[in-house]
């Protein structure tokens, strides 16, 4: 089964579960609250089941027909998979850094580490670029817009 087919089947199953759970939960609510969940949940379950069945029993490798952004296919699948995992790692890692260290530190750390490890940039460029991005972040969001950024769980725990 192709990755696209697997992804489609997975999405259909997740929607089936969500719609089933939503419809089942709504049965106990007063009609005011359950009207819309039932109107949407039941057809959604049926449509998701149709997509899942189509995916399981229908033709494989159906050509893409969506008017939407598409991933570039100019890298070998192995490389694409490895880099996708790497990108996911950076995204999740940045979230972890924000939660543990707070935004101001996490922003500087992400830019510095990304440039050094992913971009293999030199020390001077990395430091200057990190300082510029951090200065932009601090100047715009902290000094100008006064957005409240908590210090992060780790720093709170240490202090």
């Amino acid at each position: 089964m192709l990755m696209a087919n697997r992804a489609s089947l997975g999405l259909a199953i997740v929607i089936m579960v969500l719609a089933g759970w939503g419809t089942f939960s709504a049965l106990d609510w007063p009609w005011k609250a359950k009207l819309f969940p039932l109107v949407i949940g039941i057809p959604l379950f049926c449509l998701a089941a149709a997509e899942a069945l189509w995916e399981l029993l229908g033709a494989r490798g159906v050509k893409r027909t969506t008017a939407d952004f598409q991933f570039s296919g100019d890298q070998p699948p192995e490389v694409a998979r490895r880099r996708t995992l790497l990108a996911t790692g950076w995204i999740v890692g940045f979230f972890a850094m924000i939660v543990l260290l707070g935004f101001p530190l996490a922003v500087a750390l992400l830019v510095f580490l990304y440039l050094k490890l992913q971009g293999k940039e030199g020390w001077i460029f990395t430091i200057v670029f990190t300082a510029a991005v951090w200065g932009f972040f601090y100047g715009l969001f902290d000094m100008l817009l006064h957005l409240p950024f908590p210090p992060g769980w780790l720093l709170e725990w240490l202090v």
Partner: protein
Amino acid sequence: MADAFVQGLLLVLQWKAFVFMLLGIGVGFWVGLLPGLGGATTLALMLPFIYNMQPVEAFAFLLGMHSVVATTGDITSILFGVPGEATTAAIILDGHAMAKKGEAGRALGAALASSLVGALIGAGALALAIPIVRPLVLTFGSPELFMLAIVGLAFIASLSAQGARGMLRGFLAGGLGLFLAMVGQDPQAGIGRFTLDTLYLWQGLDLVPVLVGLFALPEIIDLVVRGTSIAGGVPPGRISHGALEGVKDVFRNFWLTIRCALIGTFVGITPGLGGAVAQWMAYGHATQSARSPEERSRFGAGDVRGVVGPGAACNSKEGGALIPTIAFGVPGSTSMAILLGGFFLLGLVPGPDMLTKHLPITFSLVWTIVLANIITVAACFLLLNRLTALTAVPGHLLVPVILVLVFIGSYTSNSSYADILVTIIFGAVGYFMVMAGWPRAPLVLGLVLGKIAENYLYISVARYDAAWLARPVVLVLLAIAIGVICYPVFQAWRARARSHAHG
């Protein structure tokens, strides 16, 4: 009406609104050049920054940004053969061919001038539509508005993908959006629905973290996977030569420009068709303008009419798309769905109020489109040679900066780490949807329209019971929705029948 028209201009010319418009134009300018960052994504990214703005300032900022994205997107498409935006792909065929023949300046001049003409026609259509649409909208009650939401979803679900399979996926995405809109406290009975016993979900899923995750994260991942600069290392050179000749081309083919701009406006008005369709339809029409097979064979090899037509259509669609968005709350495209989110963030409800109480604000949108496009085209001509340098910035410099903007944009909607978590979850949803070939626009539309649709459905049922289904306008809208769903299936069946007959 005339007072409101002038008042709209004065609102945009207030110094604060004007500065925000310039800021928006500046952001949209660069976003259009970057193929990795779409106009819809940037609108989603910028939504959190409008919380503290007045409606006129916010729309000057958002619409100023959005209405120039397609103009600068054409530049990347022509120079590198890489679509700056999904909506600027058709211009590559002849624009990039002209660039390869050493006529990049002429192609860019034609694209910029036709974009400006298109934008002015689109804005004119919006201004003219307001008095026509207003009495129509004022006769609409809750049942009609509920059915309009369904028609909008039917349009976008059936047309954002091709064939029965594509339509099924479109409806699944739209249904998922409607389902997600139900998360949170029920507005009628006050019951917490699908909140997973968390306080965060009681207020429902915030639009910004969902949009940012759905659109920005898959594009960031793709940029990492490609591992190149956005333009793939094509060196920029001097390109301004011949730009004036391109401007003259627009006036040599003036009626073609007008017709293509009208096509773009029509596509914009029709919910669900999207900007990409506008350029392709205009390109098709431009090729039809060839008088002989020999003349037609020039298209694709660098005919300036293949640049003029798509250029005009791409920008005129914005004014057109605003008509159903403002008048009915039915967004014509993904970007308009996000802009609709902006309306709600500012406490404005699209529909009758926008055509009566808030009419000057509505006209300020028309003026924003006009002024933003004039300023952008002027700036493009001045900066033509320097514009393309950013597309050569290595991806590894852009990724951390975009990631920081994404997470801050998401976090600022509720100042909660849960916002970022929602962004990551919807980033994964968006990634798998792109991978599986599911359209994302219906999901956004479902999420945006969900709460309104539920409210109108509840009022309709509570007030009219089942009798609301028999109201004449409701029946007409129902027929339109069924027609919209059935037409692509009929079209596919007819194409199959024809191929059997010929084969």
